[in-house]
């Protein structure tokens, strides 16, 4: 849990942190989509440099991003390997049964590898530089049109933000119950699988009881404060769009242009 970087917020004061969450979310999603249209090494070089530039602007150390990739590196290498082995074309170096290693295959493998790494880097930029609650607001804002179709967008957003809000409490509670049972002589991480499963009961049951209790009390509070699902409500948290946000989106357009040019001219 300690090593998981993707999905965590890293407070800092940078130009990227200050961007509007909606702009960042749209740009990140667009960027990821764009990655799938690049079919030339030069294109990857461009977006790769762009990504590094964005990472630099967050003022967060490179090692943090690398750490974010680490837990997934084997999966990525495996996927890239598969592409290498199953793609033919160009000069064939090795051929063994259904597997071939060809120049075309090596390029495709490299592209796959780059694509994954860049997806992780850019998502990490998004979550490291955006407060979870701002991200929730952004999702809420972007899903707004669905409200007309009867989708409970506000409920969904509130649910998401309450869950985020209670993660520290849940961690805390888990730690407390574990400590309490340890103090009563439970030794975790010892014994057979069945024994270990049994040891979970004294943790899970109290956690379950307290979570239920918490949910009930919160429902009361929301009820008394007149929260009603599906009712129109105003928002205290305001997302504000700055010129820099428009510029960020314009850069995406620029990047698209570069990709198109590279794709068509460098065949």
């Amino acid at each position, binding site marked *: 849990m300690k090593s998981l970087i993707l999905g965590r917020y890293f407070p800092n004061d940078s130009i990227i942190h200050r961007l509007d969450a909606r702009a960042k979310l749209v740009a990140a999603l667009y960027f990821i989509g764009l990655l799938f249209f690049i079919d030339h090494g030069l294109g990857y070089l461009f977006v790769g440099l762009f990504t590094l530039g964005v990472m630099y602007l967050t003022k967060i150390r490179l090692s943090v991003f690398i750490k974010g990739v680490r837990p997934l590196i084997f999966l990525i290498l495996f996927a890239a390997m598969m592409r290498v082995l199953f793609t033919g074309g160009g000069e064939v170096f090795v051929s063994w049964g259904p597997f071939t290693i060809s120049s075309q295959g090596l390029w495709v493998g490299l592209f796959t590898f780059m694509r994954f790494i860049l997806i992780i880097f850019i998502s990490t930029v998004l979550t490291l530089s955006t407060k979870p609650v701002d991200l929730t607001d952004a999702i809420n804002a972007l899903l707004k049109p669905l409200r007309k179709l009867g989708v409970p967008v506000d409920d969904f957003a509130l649910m998401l933000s309450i869950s985020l809000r209670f993660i520290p409490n849940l961690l805390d509670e888990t730690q407390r119950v574990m400590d309490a049972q340890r103090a009563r002589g439970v030794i975790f991480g010892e014994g057979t699988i069945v024994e270990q499963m049994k040891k979970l009961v004294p943790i899970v049951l109290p956690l379950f009881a307290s979570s239920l209790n918490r949910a009930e009390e919160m429902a*009361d509070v929301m009820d008394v404060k007149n929260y009603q699902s599906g009712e129109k409500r105003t928002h205290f948290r305001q997302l504000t769009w700055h010129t820099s946000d428009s510029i960020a989106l314009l850069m995406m357009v620029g990047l698209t242009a570069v990709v198109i040019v590279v794709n068509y001219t460098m065949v």
Partner: protein
Amino acid sequence: MTDQPLLSVCDISFRYDITQDVYALSAISFDLNRGESLAVIGDNGSGKSTLARLLTGLLSPEKGAIYLDGVELNEGSKKMLRRQMGIVFQNPDNQFIATSVEDDVAFGLENLNIPYEQMRSRVDEALELVDMYEYRTKDPSQLSGGQKQRVALAGVLALKPELMIFDEAFVMLDPMSRRSILETLRRIQSELNVSIISITHDRDEIEFFDSLLVLNQGERVMRGKPAEVFKQMSSLKPPFAEQLRRDLVDAGMDLPDYYMSESELVDTLCK
């Protein structure tokens, strides 16, 4: 404004299980005037928390009725009447809905569809009242229990209520934070002339209130000013100053033999 009381509780009864003859509250009546503060005291199982849930419409009485400003509290009027009252519950953690202090204070206002500009000023005002303005961007994990209860209080104040209810809201706090939040509350009450009901088992809270309602096993034992209540009910454990006064009288000191608040006792002793 008329002379009618702000809140009228008329003969309400409630039981959690209607197949059984155990009443959590039976035939409770009382009035509360504008600007008056009332402490509801009683031990665990006296029905005092049930009363809080009935007053806020989380439960409906089986018999009897509750009137706020002359309007009966029921499913239809609940939403409208809740604009005039707010409640702070016991557990500081479980009533903090939002991810930051100011968002949490705004939560009730958002539900009332109040425009942003007005929300902003009401939230700031409420936070100033409870001395939490500097903490407005903090998240709940950065606050102590007492500070969280102040935020909950601000959330209620932002609604500009006529009635504030506290359901054992201060019992989980340490004595110092409890005293200081009660002092804040007293100041706010005199500034805004709002009515307060505090449900509590803390005897030392009592001196902050105009009158007391004593419940025992779901029944009303008595209602009156602290002096009257402690004079008539010798079995009820009084606040510390009154305990001491009784002790001193028993030991033969020349003190008047009626209930005294802390400041009265100090004044009398120092004459």
